């Protein structure tokens, strides 16, 4: 300790790589934190940002209901165009919003529904043959035809489901990106969402930010002490250890925050201070969105 490290710096070969798993977690934590901050400080000059949160929450519920009722692609496309226009008027970054919408739509809409496009599941006219078997089989309750391929009806079903998912996501992102979190919570409270649900959501939201920051800090603290390449096993062990640490820390923080809430008089209900009165502009916007919804409902 009393002696300094001997020797001077010598140049040499070799690079130290941060393990993929760790980089991935750190990146995810960064994305969460960035998203959280962007959400809270997002510009409030667009069309949708100016509307009262209650109107937006009702709009979201009403339109998701309409989207799930539609049985053909054309009205779904009209709805998509309408939401796209609203996103544009709200001055949101189209690229940023639709990158997420399309990625999630692809994962949870297209990929999930894709198997149903085959004639094994959806009978119909094959438009894209994939495999030809020597004969037809019967496996458990499924008859497997000799010609396996994608059917017209199947692909229509996949497209329909993907459109529904994309529309629901576009609507959700439009509302989320134009409404600060606490306003959504207040709107839900006004709309009589249960208090326990609101408490859980609020605390989870807060924790996600705090712990994404903790994860980033832990990653940096480790990075500052790394002098060699870590093996995958070491990386996995470190991550497993940190997960346990975070879990414990979450528990402790949860207890502390709850004590702080009790200390400030919390008993069992969430109390928010009242909303501002609905302005003329809010009423106009709500009428416009309502009639747009009615239009889409009947086309």
């Amino acid at each position, binding site marked *: 300790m009393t002696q300094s490290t001997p020797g001077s710096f010598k140049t040499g070969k070799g690079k130290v790589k941060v393990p993929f798993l760790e980089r991935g977690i750190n990146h995810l934590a960064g994305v969460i934190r960035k998203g959280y901050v962007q959400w809270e400080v997002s510009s409030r000059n667009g069309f949708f940002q100016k509307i009262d949160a209650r109107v937006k929450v009702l709009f979201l519920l009403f339109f998701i209901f309409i989207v799930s009722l539609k049985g053909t692609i054309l009205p779904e496309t009209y709805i998509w165009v309408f939401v796209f226009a609203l996103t544009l008027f709200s001055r949101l970054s189209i690229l940023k919003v639709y990158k997420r919408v399309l990625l999630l739509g692809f994962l949870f809409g297209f990929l999930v529904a894709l198997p149903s496009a085959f004639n094994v599941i959806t009978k119909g006219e094959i438009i894209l043959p994939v495999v030809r078997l020597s004969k037809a089989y019967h496996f458990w309750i499924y008859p497997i035809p000799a010609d396996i391929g994608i059917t017209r009806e199947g692909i229509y079903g996949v497209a329909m489901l993907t459109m529904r998912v994309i529309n629901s996501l576009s609507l959700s992102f439009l509302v989320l990106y134009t409404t600060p979190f*606490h306003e959504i919570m207040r709107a839900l409270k006004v709309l009589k969402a249960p208090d326990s649900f609101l408490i859980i959501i609020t605390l989870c939201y807060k924790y996600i930010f705090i712990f994404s920051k903790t994860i980033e800090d832990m990653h940096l603290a480790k990075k500052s002490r790394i002098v060699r390449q870590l093996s995958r096993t070491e990386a996995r062990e470190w991550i497993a250890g940190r997960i346990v640490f975070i879990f414990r820390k979450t528990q402790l923080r949860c207890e502390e925050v709850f004590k702080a809430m009790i200390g400030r*008089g919390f008993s069992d209900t969430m109390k928010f201070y*009242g909303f501002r009165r609905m302005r003329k502009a809010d009423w106009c916007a709500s009428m416009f969105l309502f009639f747009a919804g009615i239009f889409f409902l009947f086309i």
Partner: protein
Amino acid sequence: MRLEKVCYSYHDRIPALSEASLDVTEGERFAIIGANGTGKTTLLHLMNGLIHPSRGKVLFKGREVSKETLREREFLRFFRERVGYVFQDSDVQLFCPTVLDELLYGPLQLDIGEKEALDRAYEVMKMLNIESLRDRPSYMLSAGEKKKVAIGSVLTMNPEVLLLDEPTNGLDPKTQCFLVELILALNEANKTLVIATHDLSLVDELQATVAVLSEDHRIEKKGSVDEVLRDEGLLLKVNLIHEHIHRHGEIAHKHVHSHYPLHRHDR
């Protein structure tokens, strides 16, 4: 507020307080000092009814503060309205979306009308000079601002007793100075202040009545600030001061180290 032979241990195994008895009178400035891990925070938690003693009693205005009594709606309100607690870690205390929400949280929980709650919030913001932070979320505040908001969030409840856990910890000198002045002003306004700290200069500045916690979690001594801070042997025993070597130019010498009252050089 009175504590009678209070004992507390975490998970029934790790002792945190042992036979602690205290008497805090109305309008008093009271400091609980002790090294890290002596039980200062635990003591404040007990005084705020957040945890309850395994033995002994905590009394507020003659009534016991226990799990049972805090289940009574009237007493719970009576107690929470009158005793406010500022946590050491402001992040724990700031759980609302914006500063204004933080300030309104307490009054709204106490069913104070919206108009009055807002009036209180604006008054406190003005007093703490945080009006410009009104709509900011807590994670966008500096440590000093967070501390001010945390104190503000309790002040809007207008408590008679304020429990402050390490209020000056991690703050810059200017904010520390602001805080000391604020504490004195609150005391002038007849608020009872109980401060847990290991900052001896703060205790000296506040001229508080002092209780010293030892490392075996007992109250080692109670007395006036002069009685306690001049007792070098006691402070050494409870690890609040220590001997260290430092240099004045070419001369190195050793003395008992404390930032205010005991910093003297033997010739």
